[in-house]
């Protein structure tokens, strides 16, 4: 056991076991509803908006997010909220109002299938294969992170943790499919919030509230060479890249994070969009991201604020708070949340906190597996291996079987990916960086496809590929300062050095998006549109009748919710300007 290790008692294990009984019980209860592929892979399009909405953000609230954002809270302070208030929120509102009507209304069962309907087979194939590989990889990396955490913190066996957590996720996704994943994500959402709340309250109590925190931060931040309130403000010091720890100016944040990265992630990632596509009606599908956005805006107070408190504790004499060091003076901020659990929680709530972390790992993993099996079954197997036949009943049974097998296959390959990550960590980091680059060009292509009927299939395909290659090229030609390995960039040569890795990511995304958009527009004008207006109805904005919300009360309308979400986000931004 390492210095971050701590011992759990009977009450902690009891809480954990009660939770897992419910997780598997939900899968078990849903088993009898899994009669065909539609029920298993699409949840029968039956989810109420609030369930889909909470699942929507819970999928994203995976452990890498919880651990990463708490660490970022310590590293960048409230600037981390840019991932929420300028990043996720506008993108979620845009997805809800402008994109969901096409994703949901087109009857496509996945994002790749939308690409097939809107463009052509090759665009779908490219996206489906990249997505399938990326999802399994992400699932494996998150499993690896879980097992290493369990080993370091609880002293559990690495292999046992890996296999056990995979078995639980497999158990409930195999039994209940997407419905089970979604219902469990809702459960996970509540356990994550309730499990982490004690840390927020206790750390703020300990440091004398928000004002006490600000006061004690000032000398620490000044010593780093920034203005005293840099860690507790969001936009104030973004006039220049050198006055804030992110190393990016306001326009880099607005364009890179606020526009390209966030819209790319939230509007095109099937893992996320799938939750909204499972909603019971077109209105519920539009409301899903909006209902998710409401709690999403307050997540920073749950995970970023404790991270900021951790920075104070780290520099406070006699607090007893430490983080493992990577090298002398350089802390491993990934362990911030664990160290905080250890610092403040006695037996009892400690079990709850650990359960919350485990829950966040599982929600990420189950999300990946349930998105993978859908894309595999519909976009790869059904398209290229065994197309639909005339016998619908036999087909239903067959694809349900394939969906189930894909679930098992997905979990097994994830485990293999987790071992690869433990053996070749750098390569996996690199692959993950590479695959994260496919979102920005994908957003350019889908955006143009939805709002410009002239966009052609050849153009979309080329745009997607070229955006991806430009992202690779940019990554190969630039380096974040202090990068020790080629994994971080500069593997061709070093033309430009960014102050931090975050800045490099932002600009990679901006370049990829711009290239992809320019090439798609140019080639669309140069090639012939093969699809008639009739074929594009329901897929393109200008050719689709507007969705009218007249027979529902005003407070349930998407527009009302959207205004509410944007108003609260604006108020939060001003409060922490």
């Amino acid at each position, binding site marked *: 056991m390492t210095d971050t290790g701590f011992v759990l008692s009977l*009450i902690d294990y*009891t*809480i954990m076991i*009660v*939770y897992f009984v*419910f997780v598997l*019980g*939900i899968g078990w*209860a*849903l088993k*009898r*509803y899994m009669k065909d592929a539609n*029920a298993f892979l699409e*949840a*029968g399009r*039956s*989810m109420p908006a609030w*369930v889909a909405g909470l699942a929507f953000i819970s999928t994203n609230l995976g452990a890498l997010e919880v651990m990463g954002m708490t660490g970022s809270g310590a590293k960048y302070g409230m600037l981390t909220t840019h991932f929420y208030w300028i990043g996720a929120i506008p993108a979620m509102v845009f997805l809800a109002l402008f994109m969901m009507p096409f994703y949901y209304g087109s009857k496509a069962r996945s994002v790749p299938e939308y690409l097939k309907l809107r463009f052509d087979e090759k665009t779908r194939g490219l996206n489906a294969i990249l997505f399938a590989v990326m999802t399994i990889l992400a699932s494996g990396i998150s499993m690896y992170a879980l097992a290493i955490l369990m080993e370091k913190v609880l002293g559990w066996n690495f292999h046992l943790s890996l296999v056990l957590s995979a078995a639980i996720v497999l158990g409930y996704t195999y039994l209940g499919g997407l*419905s089970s994943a979604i*219902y469990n994500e*809702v*459960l996970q959402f*509540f356990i994550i919030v*309730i499990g982490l*709340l*004690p840390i927020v309250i*206790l750390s703020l*109590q*300990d440091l004398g509230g928000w004002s006490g925190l600000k006061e004690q931060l000032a000398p620490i931040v000044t010593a780093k060479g920034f203005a005293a309130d840099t860690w507790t403000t969001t936009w104030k010091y973004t006039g220049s890249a050198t006055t804030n720890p992110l190393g990016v100016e306001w326009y880099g944040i607005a364009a890179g994070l606020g526009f390209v990265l966030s819209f790319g992630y939230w509007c095109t990632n099937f893992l996320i969009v799938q939750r909204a596509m499972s909603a019971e009606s077109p209105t519920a599908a539009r409301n899903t991201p909006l209902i998710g956005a409401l709690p999403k805006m307050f997540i920073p107070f749950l995970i970023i604020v404790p991270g900021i408190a951790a920075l104070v504790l780290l520099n406070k004499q006699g607090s007893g708070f430490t983080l493992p060091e990577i090298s002398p003076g350089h802390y491993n901020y990934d362990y911030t949340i664990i160290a905080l659990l250890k*610092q*403040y*929680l*006695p*037996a*009892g*709530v400690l079990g*709850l906190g650990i359960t919350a972390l485990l829950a966040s790992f599982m929600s990420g993993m189950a999300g990946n597996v349930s998105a993978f099996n859908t894309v595999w079954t519909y976009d790869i197997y059904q398209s290229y291996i065994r197309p639909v036949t005339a016998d619908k009943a036999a087909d239903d049974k067959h694809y349900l079987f394939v969906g189930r097998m894909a679930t098992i296959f997905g979990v097994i390959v994830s485990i293999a990916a987790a071992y690869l990550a433990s053996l070749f960590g750098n390569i996996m980091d690199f692959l993950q960086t590479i695959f994260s680059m496919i979102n920005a060009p994908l957003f350019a292509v889908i955006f143009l496809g939805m709002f410009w009927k002239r966009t052609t299939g050849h153009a979309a395909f080329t745009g997607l590929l070229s955006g991806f290659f430009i992202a690779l090229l940019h990554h190969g030609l630039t380096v974040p300062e202090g990068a020790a390995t080629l994994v971080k960039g500069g593997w061709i040569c070093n033309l430009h050095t960014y102050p931090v890795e975050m800045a490099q990511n932002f600009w990679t995304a901006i370049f990829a998006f711009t290239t992809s958009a320019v090439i798609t527009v140019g080639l669309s004008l140069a090639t012939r549109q093969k699809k008639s207006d009739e074929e594009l109805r329901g897929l393109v904005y200008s050719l689709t009748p507007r969705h009218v919300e007249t027979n529902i009360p005003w407070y349930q309308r998407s527009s009302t919710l959207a205004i509410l979400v944007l108003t609260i986000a604006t108020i939060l931004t001003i409060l922490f300007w």
Partner: protein
Amino acid sequence: MGIDIKFPIGLMFTILGFLLTVFGVITGGDEALYRRSLGININLWSGCGMLAFGLIMLFLAWKSWKAKTS
């Protein structure tokens, strides 16, 4: 599909809340245990909060079940 998720959520938090509340009451006098949490009996507080949340969820589940069956 099939089940009302409010019911398992309500039931689970009622059970967990009850467990933590009881544990909080039993360990109430244990100063060493609560030194970490600044002397606050965080188990009791969390337990009560979860119990309340669980019962509200169960009540809502019961209401939707009644609306559905009548």
